[in-house]
């Protein structure tokens, strides 16, 4: 009797803390909405389609930042996904056993380097390299909108490269986990049908498809919210353009740059509203990504039982 009441007390007392975690999640959404009310009331939905960002005259439109965040993340995914999946496949399927641990550790080291260090490296090492590439771009190529613009070094392309490097370890480590969970019977069956090594790997990828899409989305979530490194190399100009050379801006970057300068309440609320949208987008992307990853991991491998027919049944 005494024991069960002790158990109940333990359950309730320790249960307070998970409640706190839920409270934080709800609290962020509540606080960000509350603190952006002025801007939400004044601009309504027009905030998301407005292209003018003019703090002096109090006109705020967030479209250039939304564009910059989505475009840079998309470019980063295009660059990082083949690399990340290649790494995951190499480590889980192809690499000699001896190399597996060190390679895992090295690729995960990329995730441990702070964003500010990426930014520093971006400013002083990557940007000059990109500027050189831009200077050597032939004129006929410059006519394509993707490669138009001044050869500054800072801009959308540099930001996308930095982002893609930062995203690789997240996507590759989850994809590797997913591949590890694919039952080996899947690959063996493919080999038994005469598949080459790559064809067997494709079978394994097909089996873990949902989880791998989840891994890519997890990377997307990271890219959308990345702040410092992008702020330092994207050039910070609220421009909507498909050009890789032109300086642009992202949602996280505008918050980082202008938050402490926001002199009046409306300006501050406009910045927080951008933060609110960033929060909503990343929550949705992350939630979907986790659901996909979980559903793959929890998928029960079919149990194949190969048993020799029992003696007596043969006799009968």
């Amino acid at each position, binding site marked *: 009797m005494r024991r069960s009441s*002790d*158990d109940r*007390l*333990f*359950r309730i007392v320790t249960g*307070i*803390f*998970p409640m*706190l*975690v*839920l409270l934080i999640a709800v*609290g*962020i959404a509540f606080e*960000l909405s*509350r*603190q952006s009310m002025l801007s939400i009331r004044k601009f309504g939905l027009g905030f998301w389609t407005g292209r003018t960002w003019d703090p002096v005259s109090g006109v705020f439109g967030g479209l250039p930042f939304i564009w910059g965040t989505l475009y840079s993340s998309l470019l980063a995914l295009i660059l990082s996904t*083949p*690399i*990340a*999946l*290649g790494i995951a*496949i*190499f480590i889980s*399927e192809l690499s000699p056993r001896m190399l597996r641990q060190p390679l895992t550790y*090295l*690729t995960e*080291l*990329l995730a*441990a*380097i*702070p*964003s*500010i*260090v*990426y930014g*520093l*490296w971006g*400013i*002083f*090492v990557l940007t000059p390299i990109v500027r050189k590439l831009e200077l050597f771009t032939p004129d006929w190529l410059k006519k394509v909108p993707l490669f138009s613009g001044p050869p500054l070094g800072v801009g959308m392309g540099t930001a996308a490269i930095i982002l893609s490097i930062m995203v690789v370890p997240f996507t590759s480590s989850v994809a590797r986990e997913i591949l590890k969970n694919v039952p080996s019977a899947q690959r063996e069956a493919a080999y038994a049908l005469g598949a080459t*090594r*790559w*064809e067997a790997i494709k079978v394994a990828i097909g089996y873990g498809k949902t989880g791998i899409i989840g891994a890519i989305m*997890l990377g997307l*979530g990271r890219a*959308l*919210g990345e*702040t410092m490194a992008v702020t*330092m190399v994207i050039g910070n100009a609220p421009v909507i353009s498909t050009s890789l050379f032109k300086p642009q801006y992202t949602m*996280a970057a505008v*918050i*980082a740059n202008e*938050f402490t300068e926001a002199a009046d309440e409306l300006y501050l609320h406009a910045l*927080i509203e951008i*933060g609110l949208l*960033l*929060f909503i987008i*990343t*929550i949705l992307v*992350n939630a979907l990504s986790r659901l996909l990853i979980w559903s793959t991991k929890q998928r029960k491998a079919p149990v194949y039982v190969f048993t020799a027919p029992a003696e007596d049944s043969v006799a009968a």
Partner: protein
Amino acid sequence: MTNATRRKIVSKIAETFCALAVLVALVPLVMILFYVITHGASALNLAFFTHTPKPVGEPGGGMANAIVGTLVLIGLAGLFAVPIGMMCGIHLSEYSGTKFSSVVRFAADVLNGVPSIVVGIFAYGLVVYPIRRFSAVAGGFALGLLMIPIVVRTTEELLRLVPPGLREGALALGASRSRAVFSVIVPAALPGILTGILVALARVAGETAPLLFTSFNNTYWSTNIMQPMASLTVQVFTYAISPYDDWHRQAWAGAFLLVMIILTLSIVARLAVRRLERMNRP
């Protein structure tokens, strides 16, 4: 060319691509470490650790206040996040099958993906705005919020590694559930949990974005947690975007120190985890 040779060639090409992908990812890693070490180590000197920043134009000076500031900030973050995160992890591992636990686990994972700058805005609204002053407390609060999901998940995972025999033994001796958890199960997993906490501390020590408008920056020596406080990351950022060569060198030195701290902690953690895994192997 027969179909079979064609398939074999495709397979070889794809395998080569995967191996190349690994090399391609290692290039930036090696490059970043190379630049941080060569530029950073040469800019490090005693003054870097003992002096506060000099005004523009005066050479020399260091980041003593920022180093202490970072330690204070992650200390505050740990004080706030470790108790909450550990208790939450204990609950999740004890009642792992309940619907409540799945919801919390999901929330923790999703929170882990919330951009740190958004967490910074939250801390600004909750701590900075009401008292109208940037403060180290606000920065520590923001970093703590970023730590909680990591501590929760590490604690839970490591508690699950504790052999069930330990719990059964404690219960058989007449221990209540709380007694079994706090006197037997948690201590058994404690070394692992502590390493997990170290890794989480290292991660938040490298955060810049949530500090920009919570703990802000401070060029003077300060240990008052109700005042703005310098941190290595914000100081590196300020110096990196400045136009002065001397400040750029200091930024590299700061980056070098950050990377060294994080590398050391992650290597220590990796060794500790490997030892634990060996111990728990039946």
